[in-house]
């Protein structure tokens, strides 16, 4: 390479990022939303908005379980938390096959104790979460390969971007608005440097979460890995996950269902159980009596308080083996991943017997060995499971800056080459992809949320329709970008996206059974925060529209006097005089 290190790094930075920049933008944008996937799913399930917090959710849970599955082998209770206000319940019938260990499932309102049976099927935040690491409509392996390769190129772009900057921190404090290319450079640098540690961390950790795919010589999926959808691919985590993990996931995913099919399947099982209540209960009671399993009274509320005191943190999950019998075993688990070093065995647990005596108590010892510890910390950082609300917002805003960094980088490339390369095939291709990849992505996201409320709640396969709305909106934007981008492409697509996001809160309060005042009264800040973020997104998009509109109305460069260019030297005094 000629031209020295800085020039080589500039070339590497430009091209390593450009060839995948639209994938990276989509990955960053959807990945950023994934920090709030449970909250997005809550917003996208308006039937849950009526759910009200309760001081006695455990009473509601046990009352419901006793009425529906009094003689189940196990009960699983996921208590409401700051991310979801509903109770998630699972139970496993006696003799139920192992592969059905997730059992039936119900989501109930903790205050009223009634099941929310009619909740709509939605792809929710899970679609965005999964999209950010395996895309959609292609095989899982192919999606992970694409995202993995794009992440590797992003990692190269970040490191080469740091090397190429002469004065990276001085540049950070420079912003030159209204200077065209210089403004884009400044926006790109600010977005990059402000959250640089986050960008490095999220890219690097994203890479090794996809290592099962990228490092085929490692053994990949065969050795354990990441064939399962819910996990990002950490083979170690999957392989070493404790036996109870699927049950826990089942309880949690009661609020964020992985797929529509799964949701339908679970609901079907629950309906079946409820429809056949009487004979089923009688049959089970007889079997229970045969086994000398007499119902005994267990003060779960008291055990709950004891468990919290012993663990030193709020209880999040409860599982009860042989519930309400003399052989009962009640296990309370704390917040699943409350520290960065949780990795395996990071959840404190306390188990009681039916007499209320502690039979087992475990505290998180963390992972064994330095490698597992480092891996666990890095993995937690990427997934943000450890994060409380404030930290989650910080991660979210860092993700927004990452999205700005990628988007401004893409636009910077076009801006720099507009004069020389406009009309050339490569330049026009990048311009079209920039428009569809950036503005179009916002339109698609807005359409996805709108589809969630417009498609009737009882439509078959509606979660697939939500996803189709996302993809169709994106495709329309791409077609517009390819054929009509010069007809105010940016202005129109950003305005459409801005409008979609601006009216999302209105749509929310019109179509949700709980209005704005109800949401405030119920303290449903998850939902209100979503609406506020939608309004802020709309404000950002409309600001961009305003500047583009202003720019379109100002005379073109050719017609403006160029202040930088010196006026032609007068040929002679006569010309000067004239």
């Amino acid at each position, binding site marked *: *390479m000629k031209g020295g290190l800085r020039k080589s790094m500039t070339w*590497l930075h430009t091209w390593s990022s450009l060839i995948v920049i639209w994938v990276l933008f989509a990955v960053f944008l959807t990945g950023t939303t994934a920090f709030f996937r449970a909250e997005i799913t809550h917003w996208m399930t308006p039937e849950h908005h009526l759910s009200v917090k309760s001081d006695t959710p455990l009473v509601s849970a046990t009352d419901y379980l006793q009425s529906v599955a009094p003689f189940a082998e196990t009960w699983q209770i996921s208590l409401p938390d700051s991310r979801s206000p509903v109770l998630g319940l699972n139970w496993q019938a006696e003799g139920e096959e192992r592969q059905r260990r997730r059992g039936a499932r119900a989501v109930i309102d903790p205050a009223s104790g009634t099941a929310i049976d009619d909740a709509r099927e939605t792809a929710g935040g899970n679609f965005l979460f999964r999209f950010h690491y395996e895309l959609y409509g292609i095989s899982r392996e192919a999606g992970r390969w694409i995202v993995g390769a794009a992440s590797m190129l992003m990692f190269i772009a970040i490191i080469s971007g740091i090397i190429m900057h002469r004065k990276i921190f001085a540049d950070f404090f420079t912003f030159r608005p209204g200077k065209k290319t210089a403004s884009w450079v400044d926006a790109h640098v600010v977005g990059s440097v402000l959250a640089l540690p986050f960008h490095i961390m999220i890219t*690097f950790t994203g890479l*090794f979460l996809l290592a099962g795919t990228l490092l085929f010589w490692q053994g990949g999926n065969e050795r354990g890995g990441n064939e399962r959808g819910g996990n990002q691919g950490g083979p*170690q985590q999957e392989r070493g996950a404790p036996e109870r993990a699927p049950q826990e996931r089942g309880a949690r995913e009661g609020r964020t269902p992985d797929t529509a099919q799964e949701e339908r399947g679970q609901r079907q099982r629950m309906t079946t159980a409820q429809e056949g209540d009487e004979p089923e209960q009688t049959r089970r009671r007889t079997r229970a009596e045969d086994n000398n399993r007499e119902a005994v009274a267990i003060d779960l509320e008291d055990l709950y308080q004891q468990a919290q005191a012993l663990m030193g943190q709020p209880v999040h999950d409860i599982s009860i083996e042989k519930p309400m019998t003399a052989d009962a075993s009640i296990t309370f688990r704390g917040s699943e991943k409350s520290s960065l070093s949780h990795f395996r065995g990071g959840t404190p647990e306390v188990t009681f017997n039916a007499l209320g005596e502690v039979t087992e108590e475990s505290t998180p010892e963390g992972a064994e*060995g330095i*490698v597992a510890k480092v*891996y666990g910390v890095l993995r937690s950082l990427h997934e943000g499971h450890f994060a409380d609300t404030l930290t989650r917002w910080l991660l979210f805003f860092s993700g927004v800056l990452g999205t700005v960094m990628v988007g401004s980088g893409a636009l910077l490339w076009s801006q720099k080459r507009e004069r020389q390369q406009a009309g050339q095939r490569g330049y026009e291709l990048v311009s079209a992809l920039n428009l569809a990849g950036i503005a179009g992505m916002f339109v698609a996201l807005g359409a996805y949320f709108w589809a969630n409320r417009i498609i009737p709640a009882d439509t078959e396969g509606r979660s697939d329709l939500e996803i189709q709305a996302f993809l169709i909106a994106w495709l329309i934007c791409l077609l517009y970008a390819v054929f009509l981008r010069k007809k105010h492409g940016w202005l129109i697509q950003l305005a459409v996206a801005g409008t979609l996001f601006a009216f999302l809160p209105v749509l929310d309060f019109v179509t949700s059974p709980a209005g704005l005042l109800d949401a405030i009264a119920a303290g449903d800040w998850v939902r209100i925060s979503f609406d506020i973020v939608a309004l802020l997104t709309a404000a950002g998009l409309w600001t961009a529209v305003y500047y583009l509109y202003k720019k379109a109305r100002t005379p073109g460069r050719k017609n403006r006097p160029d202040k930088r260019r010196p006026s032609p030297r007068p040929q002679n005094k006569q010309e000067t005089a004239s």
Partner: protein
Amino acid sequence: MAALSGRWPLTARILTAAVGGYALSTVITLLLLLVTGFEGREARMFTSMIFFIAYVTIVIVAFSIQSHKKTIGLIAAGNGVLWGAWYLAGGEL
């Protein structure tokens, strides 16, 4: 780009950095694995973390060297020597 000279040498450099760099990162990771003695889960965690650091470093180095020939030669030689060492050390995939 002024920083580049010739289409084919550049293509060769990109391929060397991408493919040769991948192979070199792999063997560096495997050798480190032999040295550290990690096995099973720990070995996979270790390789997952180390590989990408090695890979990005090699790509950056591959593009920071002025001469195309030197870059290609260096990565080819590095691969030859390290894969040989790994083989002699009794390594197997």
